[in-house]
């Protein structure tokens, strides 16, 4: 009996300790073990009693190790800057931020999500990439957590889920915008597309682009694919584009394979206009990259790190001071996500006493209410449609002398 009591006491102490340990800011990989408590937890219930600002716990998910780590760390760090700024505002709402690694893989993302639930998250921020995001979105939909993703751009992420919203363009949205832009500006006469058909992002944009191009009467002479972003040789695809006489090649792909394509195109003396989507952003910041390869490259990106407005300048300065590199649009999307959540929470009455379900419904009501708009780094007056899609203007930049020039 004594032993049993001692065990019980020990257990109670561990639980109490674990409950105290929930205040670490980010990168807390060990999830506290107090499942029973956190389920019942409401935002800022301890703050309510002391009459201070309400604290909203934001649980972030993204790849901070593995192949896709550069995107995950960008969303993690970008959001961190916004969280620090928001908390320094001393507004009615404070944010507590915890970012978990999903390595870009669905099942890891689910464990990351479970860790965050145990931690007591109120809102889910993520995932960075589409595939894990689709999986996590169906979990948050079932559990009624509000979810805002900085960069998972597939429509699969939001399809049929009223609780999931995107900060970035959808893939089809970008493909359509690209075709419209090419038509309106009369760029190129014969078009080619090279895309990764093993990737939802890339094939989502490419499919919509090809469909829209057909509608607009743009002549696509070559459609080339490759199976994964670790592919290193694109000479076969480039030869096909060259042989077909394409003078504009649309590359709805990430910048790492794109840098190889530019390099190999140069080696084979093939110089069409290259036009990229937002995944191309970041190429100029690759260490050792020969910027002359990208000269004349056009790409759609919502964020230009060499922008001169105060907010961009301050963000870029902070990001560089902390991490030594220039922020890309993933970082900017992450930053905007935090402000969107913050501003929406500020509009909700009694946000501090809500359960996660109530908060989720209230946030959905604000986001889709029609009058809610956010000014951020990736656009001003951003608003959201009921299907979770963001509405903002695409910006096309051209690389001139190694820097972006907004077109």
């Amino acid at each position, binding site marked *: 009996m004594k032993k049993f009591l001692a065990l019980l006491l020990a257990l109670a102490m561990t639980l109490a300790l674990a409950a105290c340990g929930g205040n670490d800011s980010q990168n807390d990989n060990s999830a506290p073990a107090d499942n029973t408590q956190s389920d019942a937890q409401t935002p800022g219930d301890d703050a309510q009693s002391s009459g201070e600002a309400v604290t909203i716990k934001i649980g972030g998910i993204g790849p901070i190790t593995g192949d896709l780590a550069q995107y995950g760390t960008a969303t993690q760090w970008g959001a961190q800057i916004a969280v620090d700024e928001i908390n320094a505002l001393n507004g009615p709402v404070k944010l507590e931020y915890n970012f978990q690694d999903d390595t870009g893989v669905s099942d890891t993302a689910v464990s990351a999500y479970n860790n965050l639930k145990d931690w007591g998250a109120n809102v889910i921020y993520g995932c960075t990439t589409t595939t894990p995001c689709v999986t996590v979105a169906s979990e948050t939909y079932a559990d009624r957590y509000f979810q805002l993703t900085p960069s998972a751009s597939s429509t699969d992420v939001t399809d049929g889920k009223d609780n999931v919203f995107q900060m970035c363009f959808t893939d089809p949205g970008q493909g359509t915008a690209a075709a419209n832009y090419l038509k309106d500006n009369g760029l190129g006469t014969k078009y080619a597309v090279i895309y990764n058909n093993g990737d939802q992002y890339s094939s989502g944009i490419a499919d919509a682009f090809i469909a829209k191009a057909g509608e607009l009467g743009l002549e696509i002479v070559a459609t080339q694919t490759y199976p994964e972003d670790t592919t*290193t040789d694109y*000479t076969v695809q480039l030869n096909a584009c060259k042989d077909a006489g394409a003078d504009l090649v649309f590359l709805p792909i990430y910048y790492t394979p794109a840098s190889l394509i530019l390099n190999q195109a140069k080696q084979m003396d093939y110089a069409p206009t290259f036009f990229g989507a937002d995944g191309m952003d970041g190429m100029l910041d690759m260490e*050792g990259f020969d910027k002359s390869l990208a000269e004349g490259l056009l790409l759609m990106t919502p964020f230009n790190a060499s922008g001169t407005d105060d907010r961009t300048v301050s963000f870029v300065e902070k990001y560089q001071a902390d991490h030594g590199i220039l922020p890309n649009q993933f970082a900017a999307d992450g930053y905007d996500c935090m402000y969107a959540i913050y501003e929406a929470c500020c509009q909700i009455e009694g946000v501090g006493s809500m359960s996660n379900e109530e908060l989720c419904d209230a946030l959905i009501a604000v986001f889709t209410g029609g009058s809610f708009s956010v000014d951020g780094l990736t656009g001003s007056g951003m608003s959201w449609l009921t299907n979770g899609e963001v509405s903002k203007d695409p910006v096309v930049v051209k690389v001139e002398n190694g820097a972006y020039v907004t077109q």
Partner: protein
Amino acid sequence: MSFLNNVITGISLGSIYAIIALGYTMVYGIAKMLNFAHGDVIMVGAYMAFFAMGRFELPAIAGVLLAVVVCTALGIVIERLAYKPLRQAPSLAVLITAIGVSYFLQNGAQILWGAATKTFTPIVNGTLVLVPEQLSISYVAILSVVCCIVVMIGLTLFTTRTKMGKTMRACSEDKAAAQLMGINVDATISMTFAIGSALAAIAGVLMCSAYPVLSPTTGSMPGIRAFTAAVFGGIGSIPGALLGGILLGIIETFGKAYISTDLSDAVVFAVLIIVLLVKPAGLMGKYVPEKV
């Protein structure tokens, strides 16, 4: 013309696979283990050359030397710390350890050097134009093929003509008997890892010169391809690795050009399966029946 272009691409890709495959084959032949961390040693070599040439602006040759020295040391250290304690363990344990070392190197590289992709500065630039506008060979491709042949000849001479090489062959035939004959098996295996890792460094520099992107996971896919090449040519056989590598490069490129860019991997592995069905020991492997 595009056919010839594809042949050139295939051979230059294949010769890089071949150099990597030589490392796999050497280690397998002597230590009878699949060193899955080999691909990641390539990545470390490429990073070393990248830092030497990109950040400290040393000449290319210094970058290559640094890569070779660091990788050789790394190979010996990995062998001592991770594989030597498992010399008597079942081969499955060693295999899993090798996979663990591979992840350790990848994640270590990511912590030390960051996840962001870096662009490698090629050690030689430019292309040799054979037919203007249509047919050209990059100097990197020529260098890869030359390196590959030199390395293969060097290794063959080393294993057949030198005393060290003889001890290696003895260990590969029968470790216990070699030990009875007074051969230091541990030292021989360390030596093999040193040579294999030095080759990995050269392969890393050549690979990143041909395809100039560098990230912590750069080595893993070529590593697996090269392993396939080694099996294809007959694992354990030095000329087999060369033949397997070049053939794999050509099949991959032709598969992309004439069948489908998406199915190129499937084509490569289909050919591998057919070859192994017909010749289970690989193209140039020796089939050694187990005596009971």
